[in-house]
């Protein structure tokens, strides 16, 4: 079965795709940090951040619409966290913002705006990172950046078996539906419960078999890997350009 993979578009060819994953990881984290540390009222800074991401997206040759669509996943989270703040945060009631009987405070609105714009810019940069880097490369990069090998292993198994399990679930659903699944709600729940249990047992048994295959190849509990990453001059230029832009934003923000 075919799936749209987590790292869709990561096999395209552009300047960003060619960069070393470590470069991209570090710059992405730096970008997110900068965004998170900028106070919400300075909208000019956020506009500049957006310009930086937009330029990066254009360089990467990834369809902007795809990035925009994927960035919508944060909407529910932002709403969940932030939507009540303008109503609850005490502060000067900004007269014109009155929703029915509740006062909307200006400072509360500012917090909501801050949460929304910061998470949106962060998610844009993360989507860009995952769309320009193959997942395997991303893991190699994280490993080189001293992320614990156990975590890397867990992530790599997750990536490898996520779609194997999705396939398994969709086969189970097909088998269920071709036997006229329906009837009472309680009966349906029971069936779904059984499916979840079966999936758990199958995954557990698969885990045992995978471990057997690892042990058969001399695995003794110590995770060893080979690094194939190499920095190039392009990485240097990119990092220089990126931090130049970022400090430009910082300076503009300081003097405005």
């Amino acid at each position: 079965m075919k799936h749209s993979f987590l790292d869709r578009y990561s096999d395209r060819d552009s300047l960003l795709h060619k960069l070393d994953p470590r470069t991209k990881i570090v710059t992405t984290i730096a970008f997110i940090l900068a965004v998170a540390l900028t106070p919400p009222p300075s909208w000019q800074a956020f506009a500049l951040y957006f310009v930086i991401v937009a330029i990066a997206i254009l360089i990467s040759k990834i369809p902007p619409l795809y990035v925009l669509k994927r960035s919508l996943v944060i909407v529910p989270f932002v709403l969940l966290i932030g939507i009540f703040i303008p109503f609850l945060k005490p502060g000067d009631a900004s007269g014109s913002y009155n929703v029915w009987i509740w006062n909307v405070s200006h400072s509360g609105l500012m917090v909501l705006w801050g949460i929304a714009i910061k998470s949106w810019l962060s998610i844009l940069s993360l989507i860009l990172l995952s769309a320009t880097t193959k997942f395997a490369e991303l893991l190699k990069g994280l490993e080189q950046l001293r992320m614990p090998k156990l975590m890397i292993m867990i992530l790599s198994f997750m990536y490898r078996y996520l779609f194997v399990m999705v396939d398994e679930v969709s086969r189970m659903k097909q088998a269920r539906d071709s036997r006229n699944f329906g009837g009472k709600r309680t009966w349906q729940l029971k069936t779904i419960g059984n499916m979840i249990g079966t999936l758990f047992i199958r995954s557990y048994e698969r885990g045992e078999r995978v471990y057997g295959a690892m042990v058969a190849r001399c695995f003794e509990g110590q995770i060893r890997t080979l690094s194939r990453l190499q920095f190039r001059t392009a990485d240097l230029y990119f990092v220089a350009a990126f931090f130049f832009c970022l400090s430009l934003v910082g300076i503009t923000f300081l003097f405005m």
Partner: protein
Amino acid sequence: MEYAIEIANLSYSYPDGQQALRDINLTIGIGESVALIGANGAGKSTLLLHLNGIIKSNETIKILGLPLNDKNLKQARSKVGLVFQNPDDQLFSPTVFDDVAFGPINMGFHPNEVRQRVSQALHDVNMAGYEQRSPQHLSVGEKKRIAIATILSMSPEILVLDEPTANLDPRAKWELIELIKGLPMTKIVASHDLEMVTALCERTIILDSGSIVADDSTPSIMSNAPLLESYGLAPTSRLAIAFD
């Protein structure tokens, strides 16, 4: 004479008490290619898992003259290459390279040697150039080849294959048979695909309810229809007549 595998009086029960193997005595010479056939649940896979100590036995198994115990385990595992039935179990890494390199890295080879072994193994299974692909994007036939490459990169002296042709279409199946046939090492193949067994192995062992019930040259076993039928490996005589 030194044997590739010597098994003496091997019995094994599952943790739940069910007897899986009974009193197995078996010697396989170096360079032989042996088929292990039997109905589902006959104990084929359980026997294979004993061959590199994934299921422990009490020194009743010798690999190339070396008793299989905790001390020799690593050495034995690099000599016996076990290819599992489901390539999705065998291939667990994000890229083909990582998977084929897994064995050699664990064996402690130098990075250059590892890279050289990976490209040689992929070349041997006609999958050169697939290093950076991710296993989930491959067809079943390609996955099977890579699974074999993950073992070949460890240059084992004994190749053990569990149902190598399961889930393959005829074309992929015959390509794989050709490939396995071209490999020089001692081979043990568990299967109930009699076509493949006939094409690949000169000796056939029938396993039934955990015991060896026949051990002979492949042609003489394959021509013995009543024998195959009685262990559930060929159509019953009534059906066979209907086919004629």
